[in-house]
């Protein structure tokens, strides 16, 4: 058994969370509330050291007074607590939302539209390896049929109906695969925790 107090803390907290498998109990609630508190404390420190200090206070103390602008914009968030001028909170929100929306249009177009279409298009070069060529054709059919399934401007009848039915089959295979993959990721986390309890804590395995 480990003599390291940190290992003991980790093991006891792990068991506290696992106790929820029996039923909701005070040990689980303690672990859950501690997690929320510590995670918030973690992000306070993280944002101080990685956001506010290098991007606001250091430039300001170096005489870059342009950074007064984000300081003032940031302070406007707190006008939310003063009913008479609470509408001013919309200014930093509008600034951030406008920035995000503007940035996302070309970013989505480049990464999620052009790149994905580029990967889907079948050219004669795709058939340099026959098997890969066949797979590429299956992917092309799958992408087209999936998109047709989500096309609601026309009734799904005839060719559109058949393509839509094929699309839902691809979607179901995709959902099943994603589900299986997610379960396996969670199972690997579970194995990790069990390994921690049996290894570093109890010393039963190497």
């Amino acid at each position, binding site marked *: 058994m480990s003599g390291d107090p940190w290992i003991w803390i980790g093991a006891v907290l792990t068991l506290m969370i*696992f106790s929820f498998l029996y039923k909701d109990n005070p040990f689980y609630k303690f672990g859950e509330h501690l997690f929320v508190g510590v995670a918030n404390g973690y992000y306070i420190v*993280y944002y101080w050291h990685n956001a506010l200090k290098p991007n606001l206070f250091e430039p300001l103390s170096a005489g870059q007074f342009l950074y007064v602008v984000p300081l003032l914009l940031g302070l406007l968030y707190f006008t939310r607590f003063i009913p008479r001028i609470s509408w001013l909170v919309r200014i930093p929100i509008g600034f951030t939302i406008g920035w995000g*929306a503007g940035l996302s249009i070309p970013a989505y177009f480049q990464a999620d539209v052009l790149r*994905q279409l580029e990967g889907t298009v079948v050219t004669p070069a795709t058939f340099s390896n026959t098997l890969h060529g066949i797979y590429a054709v299956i992917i092309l059919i799958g992408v087209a049929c999936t998109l047709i399934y989500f096309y609601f401007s026309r009734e799904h009848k005839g060719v559109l109906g058949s393509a839509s039915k094929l699309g839902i089959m691809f979607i*179901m295979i995709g959902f099943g695969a994603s589900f299986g993959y997610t379960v396996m990721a*969670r*199972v690997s986390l579970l194995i990790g925790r069990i390994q921690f309890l049996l290894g570093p804590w109890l010393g039963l395995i190497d």
Partner: protein
Amino acid sequence: MKRRLPLAICFIMGLVMIVQFFIPHPTSLAFSSVIYKWIIVLMAFALVLAIGNLIRHHGEKIRRRKEDWPYSIVTLAGMVAMAAIGLTWGIASDSLYQKIFLNVMAPLGGTMFALLAYYMASAAYRAFRARSLEATLLLVSAFIVMIGFMPFGQYLHPRFPAFAEWIMTVPNMASQRGILLGVAFGSIATALKIILGIERSWLGGKD
């Protein structure tokens, strides 16, 4: 004024960021970098607001002695302690802050997500029924991927893991790509609606 000014700021910022993307000049890149730093600062201020709300919520719970109020003390004490430790002694790799992260936060977070393995499996057992062709496809593909990614899979059949990999890279890829394209078009349309002031729900309130 109360609505027009924020809408104008949103429109200008959106337009500037779109135009900036197509001008790879050093001045344009420097401008983008400065704005990005400002946004990081604004997000930090938003976090301060969120922390304030958390303190208010749990403080109120403790003050009124509501149900489970002692756990609110645990939340607030954990937050204050972690913040004080990180702000006082720093965040170096051998600091107390990192030790707490590794031995308190990581085990708690990891175990919570590990619990989901059990709940997902039990929910799947109750919900997954091969009632139609589509449901059967979902069930079979989930089963093949789960078994294929386990060492046990290759004992069932040596080509099982390769088949699971094929499902992930061909039919799964096709459907995910289709969905991704749909999401991208939807997101672009929503972003345009926000910039042009058609979508205004973010303004909240009436006046």
